[in-house]
């Protein structure tokens, strides 16, 4: 007992112990460069292709917003889970995080994606909300409003003779705005993403058009 007390006393008067006790310092608090932090925007110009938004796994984490004439992705802290998929998916390298972009250049990896629009004709009320809400439709035919019956044949979907028709599924960017605007959950967008080797291309390289489009039949309801 007493020997151990003496041992401790001796231990505590050692110069090294005292120095360590009073002047110990840990390494500065810094985040290493290879850590995948919140994505930051680079100088590159955003083409608002929504590739980042469509691959994002977290609800409400990223939006592509228009400021004046330019578009820019915006990350919402508190929603973003820092997975880095948006950085990998962006064809223009608008976003960056950690050393992800450099690694991707070295590895030559990318994602290809395809989208399938499915309308459940049993549930569909033919209200046309989806075709009005669709941001791609809006760009193709700015006059599209009200009932969703546009004159343009170039839109993704519209109401033709009282039936909701998907005309150009290959133009879908997978933003799922239509799903949110549908009052009956009748429209569903399936995003099929694959991680592959090869340089980044414009999104939809897999070709959304070749996919089967389930317009009729309401069997697709997951």
């Amino acid at each position: 007992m007493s020997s151990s007390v003496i041992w401790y006393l001796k231990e505590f008067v050692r110069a090294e112990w005292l120095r360590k006790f009073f002047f110990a310092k840990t390494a500065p608090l810094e985040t290493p460069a290879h850590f995948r932090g919140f994505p930051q925007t680079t100088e590159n110009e955003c083409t608002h292709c929504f590739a980042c938004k469509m691959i994002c796994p977290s609800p409400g984490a990223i939006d592509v917003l228009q400021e004046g004439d330019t578009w820019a992705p915006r990350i919402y802290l508190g929603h973003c889970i820092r997975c880095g998929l948006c950085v990998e998916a962006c064809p223009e390298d608008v976003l960056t995080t950690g050393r992800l972009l450099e690694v991707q250049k070295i590895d030559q990896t990318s994602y290809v994606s395809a989208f399938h629009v499915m309308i459940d004709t049993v549930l569909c009320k033919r209200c046309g909300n989806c075709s009005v809400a669709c941001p791609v439709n809006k760009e193709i035919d700015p006059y599209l409003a009200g009932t969703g019956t546009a004159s343009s044949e170039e839109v993704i979907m519209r109401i033709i003779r009282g039936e909701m028709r998907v005309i150009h599924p290959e133009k879908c960017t997978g933003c799922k705005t239509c799903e949110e605007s549908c009052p009956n959950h009748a429209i569903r967008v399936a995003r099929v993403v694959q991680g592959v080797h090869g340089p980044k291309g414009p999104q939809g390289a897999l070709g959304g058009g070749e996919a089967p489009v389930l317009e009729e039949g309401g069997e697709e309801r997951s």
Partner: protein
Amino acid sequence: MSILQDLKNTVRSKSIHVCYVNVGSCNGCDIEILACLAPRYDIEQYGIYVHNNPREADVLLITGAFSPQWEDKLMGLWEKIPEPKVAVAIGNCPISGCVFNREGSYLDPPVRKHIPIAAEIPGCPPRPTEIIQTILTLAPVIFRDYEGGAS
């Protein structure tokens, strides 16, 4: 404010006792708080002591997106902490519900609906460096203007 109260507040901000509670997180944030204890980050060198007892705590770290089991219990826990007290939300879950805030989940985020939150640290999970930095920036401010309050 009396000088005594001033002195008390200064001492309080130099020695912070922390309690953490998991109200439905995935564990990721909890182990990052644990990592703050590691000699690498060594949260105790800043006078922050982590022990899981609400009755001794000043700061309550909350992880997780509020599962229904905690509806009565979190309030009880919050009332057990003596004044002055603050709650800090760690990670995305208490802020927004993270990836769990979807159709079909049992959770009820954000936590700020249930108890007052003083600061939020985004990230899924936040790095230990980010947690420590937030607590260090918070430490001098939270108890500065405390005036005794109702006992």
